[in-house]
Every structure is written in structure tokens, then in C-alpha cells.
């Protein structure tokens, strides 16, 4: 079976990125942009498809970072994913932003256990603990949650582990007090990247873990907003 053609994108942080798997390999783009994702996202996807000489309707599925992250950013991602998928009648693959961070640590540094933390403001972090499977894909060891840096749940950590995400740069001392010093490495500047969203999506596609456009919703983690 040839590799599925999947377009993945992320708008949940200060970066905007997209990646596309094709028979010729993976095409990807990433740009830093604190604001203005809506002005760049569709042109970026269009450029990527153009580079691969593909149409949206040639895709097997579309993947997006579903959150957690900036509320606005994750709604842009979900809204655009829904519109694209509904328009070309293709399934969607929502991927956790925290999982993307962990997958990125594996891709770049070979880390196999990653404690991910994204700044959630209000003195909290979005928290997820990830471990690599034999297939080279990160899976959550427990449910992701929004929590004080002083109260993050820490699994028994054996061997080398990494810390990644903006929460680790903002609350480094408090997270170290709770978890100990990352033995593998610390990557507090890491932003989610669509290449990692794509890796996870390819694995999900093979498992058949697809959703319809209307079921592609953001995952905020913070559910109390008043």
C-alpha cells in the first residue's frame, strides 16, 4: 500500500506550520507568527499542495492540532479543518498539541519519554506525559490536564526523560521541584510542528482512527471559562 496522502497543520501556538505526506515524501513549512495565523494558513496550505502538485481532493485525510493551546488558535485550526474536510468530503484526524511536542522531541533528540507543559496562563500549565511505542509514535501515559505547576502528576520516571514546551521555560523551578531535573534534556522553547502532527496522523490513519468533519472539535482542557 502506498503511503496515504495526508495534510496536517497547526495554529495553536506562536507558530503556523503545515506538512504534507506524498508518494515523493514529506513537504513541510513552518513560520513564526505570534498573530495573523488566519492570514497565512490557507496560503501556506495552498503553496504546499502546489509544490506537491496535489489538490485537496487528492488527499486521504486531513489532520490538525486540536489543542490545548491558545483558544483562538485551536478554534482556527478546528474551523479550517472542518471547512476543508466538509468541502472535499474527507475524514479528519485531530491530534493533541502536547503529543506533537513529545513527537518533536523524539524526532529531533531521540527522546522516548517526554513530560510536556504548555503555559496555560492563570498560573497553570497544560500537562501531558508521553512515551514512545515500538512503532515510534508517542502515546499519552495518562489523561492530559490543566493544572498548577506545583501539582502536575508525575509517573515513576525510569531512565532518560525530557521536558518540553513553554511551561518548562516559564515554570522551570517549580516543575523541577515537582519532577526532578529532566535527565535527557530540556526543550522549553519547543513549539508544536505540523511534521509531528503528520507522523501521528499517519499512524492513526493506519489504525482507522478518523472522525467526520462535524466531530472535529477543539480540546481546550480548561473547561471553566467564567
Amino acid at each position: 500500500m502506498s503511503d496515504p496522502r495526508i495534510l496536517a497543520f497547526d495554529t495553536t501556538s506562536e507558530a503556523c506550520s503545515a506538512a504534507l505526506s506524498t508518494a515523493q515524501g514529506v513537504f513541510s513549512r513552518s513560520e513564526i507568527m505570534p498573530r495573523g495565523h488566519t492570514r497565512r494558513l490557507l496560503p501556506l496550505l495552498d503553496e504546499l499542495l502546489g509544490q506537491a502538485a496535489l489538490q485537496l481532493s487528492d488527499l486521504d485525510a486531513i489532520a490538525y492540532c486540536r489543542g490545548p493551546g491558545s483558544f483562538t488558535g485551536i478554534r482556527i485550526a478546528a474551523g479550517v479543518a472542518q471547512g476543508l474536510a466538509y468541502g472535499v468530503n474527507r475524514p479528519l484526524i485531530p491530534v493533541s498539541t502536547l503529543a506533537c511536542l513529545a513527537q518533536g522531541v523524539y524526532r529531533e533528540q531521540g527522546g522516548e519519554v517526554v513530560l510536556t507543559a504548555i503555559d496555560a496562563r492563570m498560573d497553570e500549565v497544560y500537562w501531558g506525559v508521553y512515551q514512545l511505542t515500538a512503532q515510534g509514535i508517542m502515546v499519552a501515559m495518562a489523561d492530559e490536564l490543566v493544572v498548577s505547576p506545583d501539582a502536575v502528576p508525575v509517573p515513576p520516571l525510569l531512565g532518560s526523560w525530557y521536558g518540553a514546551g513553554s511551561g518548562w521555560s516559564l515554570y522551570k523551578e517549580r516543575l523541577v521541584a515537582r519532577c526532578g531535573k529532566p535527565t535527557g534534556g530540556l526543550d522549553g522553547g519547543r513549539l508544536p510542528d505540523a511534521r509531528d502532527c503528520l507522523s501521528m496522523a499517519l499512524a492513526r490513519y493506519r489504525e482507522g482512527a478518523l472522525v467526520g468533519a462535524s466531530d472535529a472539535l477543539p480540546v481546550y482542557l480548561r473547561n471553566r471559562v467564567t
Partner: protein
Amino acid sequence: MRVLGIETSCDETGVAVYDGQAGLLAHRVYSQADSHARYGGVVPEIASRDHIRKLLPLLDETLQASATERLALGGVAYTRGPGLAGALLVGAALARSLAYALGIPALGIHHMEAHLLAPMLEEPPPRFPFLALLVSGGHTMLVQVAGVGRYRLLGESLDDAAGEAFDKVAKLLGLDYPGGPALEQLAKQGDPDRFRFPRPMTNRPGLDFSFSGLKTYTLNTLRGAAEFDDQIRADTARAFQDAVIDTLYLKCRRALRQTGAKRLVVAGGVSANRKLRERLAQLARTSGARIYYPRIEFCTDNAAMVAYAGWLRLSAGEHDSLAFDVTARWPLPELREPPAR
């Protein structure tokens, strides 16, 4: 051309399909009022979250109701502003990406232009030029309209919008959000002669409005009363409503005289008020001007008006690039005519 319209500027999720030949084919509105009622007003983050949950299912339902295949759409119009940025973004993201996927043009529409053009969905539609009174939750404006995109602002509220004043006074009277329709009901039981509220800014020239003082006046009236019973609530509602309506009446009369307009369009949520319509009917008789309204359900937020305004502009060849955006604050006079064909 068949146009899909999407409205998400505040707390109503709306979808509609308008066809250049067949007219309005279907429209749906999902009101979030219940989600916000317990907070006494719209909570922006809750509004955004509701929109993203509800919009696509509603869109699918509306397309089915209009018997429109996705590929039969010729364009997608969405409310680009003014409104709540987060809420607008949901509609914009879905609309723009759907249009891209279908390979058809998309266009961001000015919410108040859509309100203003809503009476054109009725029979007979008003012809240009006309005078427009826009009275909604966020705006109170008198606009001279020479054509689509040719808007001259004659006057506007310097503080609260008329609908906002209705909502705030309704809250003081213990009515649930959104209070306009409930206040109108309550006022029916009111004695018109018990209180007389001022008609703000009618004693000086000009076409601007100010409604925030009426809220204070209401508060003082209620404080001065011996008890807060049903009768005083109704009497106060009546006095407040009479004052707002009379003020709108006087300013419309002045604007008709000043511009010599023969047609007056009244749109926006407050134009659903029956008492306002009765009072303006008098103005029609005495001034000779004809008055045009949207049907009641298209006075408040809906996507039929967005689809229609979108159809007007998209069929003239206007469209957005792939870079989309929303404009939370967007003065109506900044709009331009669609390109000439």
C-alpha cells in the same frame, strides 16, 4: 449564483442559502441565549465555543433543507465584523476554508450592511436611495443610502445603542437576557401616564442619539417608588419604551425632512418592536414616506441577510483572497460600492 451565508458575530449561529434566481432557499438560526442568560449578557468565550460546536451541523442541515449539493454553491459569504472577534473567527475560518475546498469565492460581509439590506428580502423591496434607521444591540444609526456600499452616516448613538438600553433596563426590571422582547411584553400592562421619561437629545439639532441616561432615569424612578411591584415594573417599562420610541420617531422625522428621502428602511433587533412599528406608521402617514422592515425573524441576527448581502457583492465579482481575517470594529461608512460589471 447560489450563495451560502454564515453569521457568527455574537450569540446567534446562523446559516442560509440564497439563490439569485429562486431567492432565499433555506435558513437556520441557533440561538445561544440560554447559555448566556445566567450571566446576564453574552460571555465571549462561551459564544465562541458554542459556535464551533453548532455551526457545521447547522450548515449541513441548511444545505439539505435547501436541497443544495455542496458543488452547486457559487460562493460563501460570512460576517467579517463588527462583532466579537472570537465568535467572528469561527464563522470566518469555516467559511473561508470551505470556499477554498469547493474552489469558489468567499467574501467577508459587514454585519450592519447585512442588517440594512435585510428588508430587500421582502416584497416589495425598497428601491435606492433611501434613509435607514439601524437599531440593534450594538448600534443606533441613521444612514443615508445611495446604493449598495454607498453609506453616509447622518447620526449615531454617542453611548448605549437602543437595543443595549432595552437590555440594561430589562435587567433592572428583573427580566432575563436578552430583555428587549420581554420588556415589550411587560410594557403592555403599563400605564402610559404614570411616568414620563425624557427624550434624550431631541431638543437640540442633529441626528445623534444618547440612551445611557434613560437607564439612570429608570434606576432613579424605581428607587423613588415605595415598592417594587408588578405595576411599577410595567409602568416603568412603558415609560422607558415610549421614550425610546418617541426619540427614534423624532429623529427619523427630522432626517426625512433633512434629506427629502421618500423611503425609510428600519432594521436591526429593535425594529422587531411592534410599538415602534405602530409609531413609525404615523410618521409614514404624516410624511408621505414609505417604511420598509425585515420580517420579524430577520430583524435580529440571522444568516439570510448575510447570504443576500454576499450574493449582491459576490455576483458583482467581489471576493476575498485566501488570507482571511475578522474586523471586530468596522465603521459602516468605510464600505465601498461593489465593482461595476
